């Protein structure tokens, strides 16, 4: 079959991309191997992620589904006292304003996104992307094996990889090699509990992060009135040394990792299977070319600590759709890589978050000072996902300095 754009993966990145393309009048077809609904991790949105959904006209549906509203994130230190708080705020012409975003149970949310895309006329194939189709100079589509076993070629002008960690394009050797990321020697063990203790009032839906020591932390993300997603992230060596089952490990850590976390989950009633993922941090370069590009964690995943995973998938979907629409209008038709601009922008955005996370893990004291007092507004912007900057903000420059990536400049030293 023929379609304008073939999208590998029907998660939020793929479906958002299809809907952004549809808004630009471009037809796409999603190829998804899983039967939805299906479990998925990565439940918290940044502020700007919520805005993407508003742009797609999905705000009413999000409200109707009564997803928990997230006003901010609290990060507790090892003693469980004095958390630092980063509110979700929007930015308008008059500066920052109060804003909120959502926490989502991914099985529900992802299905809603797929249903929304399909109801808007996006094509759908239930099946597995086997390999890209190529001619001498370009990717020309995707070979698919459907869930019922038929092999079919989907011919398209552009292939968008939204396959997530299975990194379809990288697997097919179209990108440069998949490199291990900075937070690679980590394992995340997670499940859901019923009846966690939340903040009273407005911030009941907020994300809580519990920090124990470097690379050893836990999350607490409300999913509905009853359930909370909980997970711990630890060095792989530590997990191996404990010689415990995933479940035993998780239950023990929830009460040992941080006193505040124990107070939040006094009784551990697990309502989901305990799952684990390891080696989730990776980076592939050169993930665009003639006829193809990758979005979100189909090319890079940094670290889950500040909930950027879902956002990058959806925001890069928006950027990729814009780049594709421009390409269909003839922009960069004769370039070796018509999507180079998109790639550079994606890298720049993810690099900003990399700075934020590196500083958090490596220089926690300096990080806390910057978030609390020195560059609060810049930090709020970055946490919300406003990471696609024309000029680096003073806060970003400060993080770069802390991470040793630039020499101190008089302006920052003096600032």
């Amino acid at each position, binding site marked *: *079959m023929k379609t304008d754009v073939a999208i590998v993966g029907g998660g939020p990145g793929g479906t958002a991309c299809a809907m952004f393309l549809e808004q630009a009048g471009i037809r796409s077809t999603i190829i998804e191997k899983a039967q939805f609904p299906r479990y998925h991790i990565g439940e918290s949105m940044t502020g700007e992620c919520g805005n993407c959904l508003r742009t797609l006209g999905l705000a009413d549906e999000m409200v109707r589904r009564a997803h928990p509203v997230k006003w901010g994130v609290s990060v507790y230190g090892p003693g469980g006292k004095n958390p630092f708080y980063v509110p979700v705020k929007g930015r308008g012409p008059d500066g920052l304003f109060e804003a909120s975003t959502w926490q989502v149970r991914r099985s529900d949310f992802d299905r809603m996104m797929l249903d929304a895309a399909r109801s808007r006329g996006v094509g759908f194939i*239930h099946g597995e992307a086997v390999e890209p189709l190529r001619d001498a100079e370009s990717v020309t589509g995707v070979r698919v094996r459907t869930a*019922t*076993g*038929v092999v*079919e070629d989907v011919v398209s002008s552009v292939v968008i990889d939204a396959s997530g960690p299975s990194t379809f394009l990288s697997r097919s050797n179209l990108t440069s090699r998949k490199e291990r990321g900075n937070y690679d020697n980590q394992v995340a063990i997670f499940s859901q509990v019923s009846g966690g203790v939340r903040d009273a009032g407005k911030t009941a839906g907020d994300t809580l992060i519990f920090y124990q020591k470097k690379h050893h932390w836990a999350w607490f993300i409300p999913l509905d009135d009853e359930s909370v997603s909980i997970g711990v992230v630890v060095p792989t060596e530590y997990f191996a040394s404990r010689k415990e089952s995933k479940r035993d490990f998780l239950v023990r850590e929830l009460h040992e990792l941080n006193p505040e976390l124990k107070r939040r989950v006094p009784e551990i009633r697990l309502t989901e299977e305990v799952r684990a993922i390891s080696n989730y941090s990776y980076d592939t370069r050169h993930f665009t070319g003639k006829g193809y590009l990758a979005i979100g964690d189909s090319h890079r995943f940094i670290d889950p600590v500040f909930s950027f995973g879902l956002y990058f998938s959806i925001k890069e979907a928006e950027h990729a759709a814009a780049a594709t629409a421009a390409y269909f209008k003839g922009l960069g038709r004769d370039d070796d890589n018509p999507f180079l601009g998109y790639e550079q922008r994606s890298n720049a955005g993810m690099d900003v978050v990399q700075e934020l996370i590196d500083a958090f893990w490596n220089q926690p004291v300096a990080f806390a000072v910057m978030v609390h007092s020195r560059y609060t507004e810049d930090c709020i912007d970055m946490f919300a996902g406003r990471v696609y900057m024309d000029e680096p903000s003073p806060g970003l420059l400060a993080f770069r300095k802390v991470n040793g990536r630039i020499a101190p400049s008089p302006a920052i030293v003096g600032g």
Partner: protein
Amino acid sequence: METIPGKADVVVIGGGPAGSTAANLLAHRGYHVVLLDQARHPRLMVGESILPHIWKYMDQLGAAEDIEKAGFIKKAGGTAIWRGVIRQMRLADFGFVRPSLHVERAEFDEILLRVAERRGVQAFEEVVVRQVHVEGSEKSVSYADRRSGQEGRITCKFIVDASGQGAVIANQLGFREFDKDLRFMSVWGYYENSAYIAHGGSICEWGKRREIRPTTVQAGIGDWGWCWHIVQKESTSVGLVLAPAQAAEFKSGGDKLEERFDRACRRIPIIGDLLQEARFIPGSVHAIRDFAYRPTQLAGDGWFLAGDAAAFVDPINSAGVVTALYTGYAAASAVDESFKKPASRAYYTEVFSTLVRQRLSLFRISALPAGQNSFPEDNALALKCAQLDSRDEQELLFAQTQLTDRPGNLAPMHAMDPRLNYTSSTRYQEVPALIPLGAELQAAG
């Protein structure tokens, strides 16, 4: 042997459903109708899945009782396996009280022809039409009688051409236009003892076909080609509708057509499972060119085209027989009105052409491989027809396009008229997986 008369009010070419319908209705209204068919019925024909719309025509033809008595397999609805998604719908959910059928076309078509004869049609089989003469006020049809070898000519006032894909008039006058969007080839054959799929997704064994109604199965095989699986009284019809590249590949296979066909069917996912215990019936394979065509003209002074002689589209929506009945009915009405008001015959010819063209456009658009319409002007024509359909009828067509993954086909019409019920339907379901044969027994035992 009855002699073919030299004169009639109306000559109908072809004794399939379109010809029998037109002839039946006109004879019933008292006209002298002669019907000529090149074959002797019962004769082979494909197009075995029939929508429940036929019953309103059967009632008018006086054929309902004969059809009911024939004991054709009643189907529950459809199962489409398209791009990895299994979808089902049930025709009863669209308000149809009487069943849709899987028919042996040889038998079904003969019933309609015999009923037409009972209602006064003079039908002659094994008579080949050589030429029509449509110039001037007196029309005539030249024929060769294959039984006696004699040739003859019947003069008449009107000709209804229901000659099927042979398309006597369109070929003679040279206005048949092949449709480049739909160039398929059909190869089909018959199996004994095939399992089938019921509504709800259960695979059932052959012996259950009268207890648990089968669905018509349509399985995509890539590149808009597909396979049908139609359970009948004594066998199951399995057909391959092949896209040009697939047809070329199929034709290039070395061994016998039958072996190639059987092997290809058994290799199709799910269809192969249904055929696991089935026996291929030797000598049952046939092939036809499934090239769609559209006539540039559907009627002229004193002549009308009906059924496949008018147009043919991909059989994906099981609309062939219903279209034949509709066009046969419309031709009969136009002839009847023209007899009654000779001064207005040009007007009735025009009305016929317009209505039939609109209906054919709608069928064509709904059957197209998604988004490949080389005749976008058809949308405006089809729209006129769509607007006259009931909400249920609109939703049924939408659900049919959903089932085989071509919902975008109706979108241009919906854009022109948002009132059309062409955007969503809750009356079809996605089935996560089929329930294998014997699954319940295993669970119980």
